[in-house]
């Protein structure tokens, strides 16, 4: 049973446009969310995170939005660059509970930014 779902296996956008990657979760206990980026043959790299007490967090070209009532989060990349082409994983954690170290990942979305 997938607790973190990324329903789009792939996304293709033009350079300079906005990329929107979506993530849904089913476990209402999740209170901390992260996005990781992964290039081929490398490990995932932390990108940005958001706590459930916020609905938006921004870092340069990357913004994460959280809609708790819908159990949905999204990552916006503006403007998209060819170097952003990678697999993006959404992950969630339960900070309040004792297992706050454990991340539950989605299956990932392959983003391709075309020049």
């Amino acid at each position: 049973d997938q607790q973190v779902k990324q329903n789009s296996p792939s996304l293709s956008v033009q350079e300079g446009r906005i990329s929107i990657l979506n993530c849904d979760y089913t476990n209402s206990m999740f209170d901390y969310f992260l996005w990781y980026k992964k290039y081929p043959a490398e490990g995932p790299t932390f990108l940005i995170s958001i706590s459930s007490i916020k609905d938006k967090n921004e870092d340069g070209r990357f913004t994460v939005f959280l809609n708790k009532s819908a159990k949905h989060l999204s990552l916006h990349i503006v403007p998209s660059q060819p170097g952003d082409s990678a697999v993006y994983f959404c992950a969630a954690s339960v900070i309040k509970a004792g297992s706050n170290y454990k991340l539950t990942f989605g299956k990932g979305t392959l983003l391709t930014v075309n020049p």
Partner: protein
Amino acid sequence: GAGVSQSPRYKVAKRGQDVALRCDPISGHVSLFWYQQALGQGPEFLTYFQNEAQLDKSGLPSDRFFAERPEGSVSTLKIQRTQQEDSAVYLCASSLGVVGYGYTFGSGTRLTVV
């Protein structure tokens, strides 16, 4: 070192063979994690160490999987009597603290069981 180092990068094992995967975390990092990533899936939690103590091994798929971190730095994930379903990328990660705030992953070991 500058990052989390894992070795070997690739391992091919015959079914039934034992394998050992090594992880060198970032120096001084207290927490160490192992994740398993099957083809087309996201990483799945296997086990967690805080220094030398294995605090959570709930994600280990079977008693054929064993992990250790005897001196609180280098860790080894051992898989006994490998089976085809063990084929995956095994990722190690470390962090300075204990919470899941963006820990640093290694490049992984790709295990193929034939």
